[in-house]
């Protein structure tokens, strides 16, 4: 059995930031990452980030991952990194079971930070299981990590930021995007991203949804149709699109299995993407010693995931008695940063969601 002070499940922006901030206060941490590489969603993001200076705005996602890894170097003796390490379970006695390089391993940490991110939602329509129907994140992974095109002609379902950005990235890879559709009457993503794909000649059809996919062994086409103001499909508005890939980008939901297993109090909050854990202002859940940060705490952005990671990191470390002299000041700084990140119109939804799951007092 391996012991450590703080175990961090997930090596994305939230997990890495948590490791850095906890180690900077003096705690001993272990990062457990399922993938062979650290960085989570960041390593496949080729676009420049929005946000403010402190969260590396206008730096490309994969470069941010590198910056975080370099920062971790400073605390080498405090941070143990396990890649190819999938956490399988989190038990009542606080033991984590892990598959590490095909071997079974157990770890008993004093505190746990869960930073597992989120997984892509799905959509139901006839033939939605055909090969060639991929999540937007999958398409991004295939292209930007492995350099492989998903196909030649794509229908993008969902005009949120991810749908828009991945559409642009598809074009950069030399793939045609036939249309971007969204069931809502307006585009969900930022205007800058929408204008970029429009300028490149891709139609964005709002109040449209997919009626069915066509094909026998894989996608050969798609039929889309228009929705009325009550979101009901309008007969006769069907259009056939000649595509070999349908990309689904209809949002993410937090990957919360461990929190359920540990018995954390959970609540369904649509604004945050699904079920999330009730937490206090230090990001500690209702189970003593289990903290959360990033998309698993509510689907948001890498910028806020990184600040939440820093916050959870210092809170976990401080609960072990580290950094008493700097803790309050850092905590105030991170809390302020989160507030300013969430000050825009998109942030308002997040703030409303968070107000339903954040309890003022720390759990006893």
């Amino acid at each position, binding site marked *: 059995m391996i012991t450590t002070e703080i175990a961090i499940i997930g090596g994305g922006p939230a997990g890495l930031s948590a490791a850095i901030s906890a180690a900077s206060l003096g705690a001993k941490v272990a990062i457990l990452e399922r993938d062979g590489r650290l960085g989570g969603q960041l390593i496949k993001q080729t676009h420049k980030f929005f946000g403010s200076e402190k969260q590396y705005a206008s730096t490309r996602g994969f470069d941010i991952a590198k910056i975080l890894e370099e920062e971790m170097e400073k605390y080498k003796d405090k941070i143990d990194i396990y890649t190819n390490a999938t956490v399988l379970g989190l038990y009542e006695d606080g033991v984590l079971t892990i598959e590490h390089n095909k071997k079974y391993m157990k770890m008993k940490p004093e505190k746990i930070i869960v930073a597992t991110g989120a997984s892509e939602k799905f959509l139901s329509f006839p033939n939605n299981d055909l090969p060639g129907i991929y999540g937007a994140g*999958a398409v991004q992974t295939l292209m930007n990590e492995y*350099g492989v095109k998903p196909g*030649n002609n794509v229908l993008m379902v969902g005009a949120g930021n991810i749908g828009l950005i991945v559409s642009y990235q598809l074009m950069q890879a030399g793939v045609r995007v036939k249309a971007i559709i969204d069931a809502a009457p307006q585009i969900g993503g930022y205007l800058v991203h929408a204008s970029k794909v429009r300028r490149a000649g891709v139609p964005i059809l709002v109040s449209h949804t997919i009626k069915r996919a066509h094909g026998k062994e894989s996608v050969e086409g798609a039929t889309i149709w228009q929705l009325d103001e009550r979101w009901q499909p309008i007969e006769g508005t069907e259009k056939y699109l000649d595509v070999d890939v349908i990309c689904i980008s209809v949002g993410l939901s937090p990957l919360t299995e461990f929190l359920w297993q540990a018995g954390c109090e959970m609540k369904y909050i649509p604004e945050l993407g699904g079920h999330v854990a009730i937490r206090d202002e230090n990001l500690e859940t209702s189970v003593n010693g289990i903290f959360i940060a990033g998309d698993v705490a509510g689907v948001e952005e890498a910028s806020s995931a990184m600040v939440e990671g820093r916050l959870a990191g210092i809170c976990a470390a401080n609960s072990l008695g580290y950094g008493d002299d700097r803790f309050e000041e850092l905590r105030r700084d991170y809390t302020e940063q989160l507030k300013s990140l969430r000050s825009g119109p998109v942030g308002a939804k997040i703030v409303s969601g968070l107000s339903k799951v954040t309890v003022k007092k720390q759990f006893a």
Partner: protein
Amino acid sequence: MRIEEHPILSFENEKRKKIKFIFDGKEYEGLEGDTIASALHAAGVKVLGHHYANNRPRGFYCAIGNCSSCLMTVDGEPNVRICVEELKEGMVVETQKGKGELK
């Protein structure tokens, strides 16, 4: 279908080592750094198997190991998520029949 030109990324496909593997009895070639899924997709293989009950074709969906849509038999071991399994020289990848049995 590999990306040959890209405004931001460079994959240097020519410089990557070629990796040979067997898929359903035939020899295929991937590149160093590929997962089994990316190598198969680059070779034009989208159908990774058929559902054990209704026999409908299956492809990958999430590509990050979350959904289990991509299970295949690799070197005799069933139910391997090939979207997160690194491609290695000489691997034997097979379409899985049924639910897969542990030997």
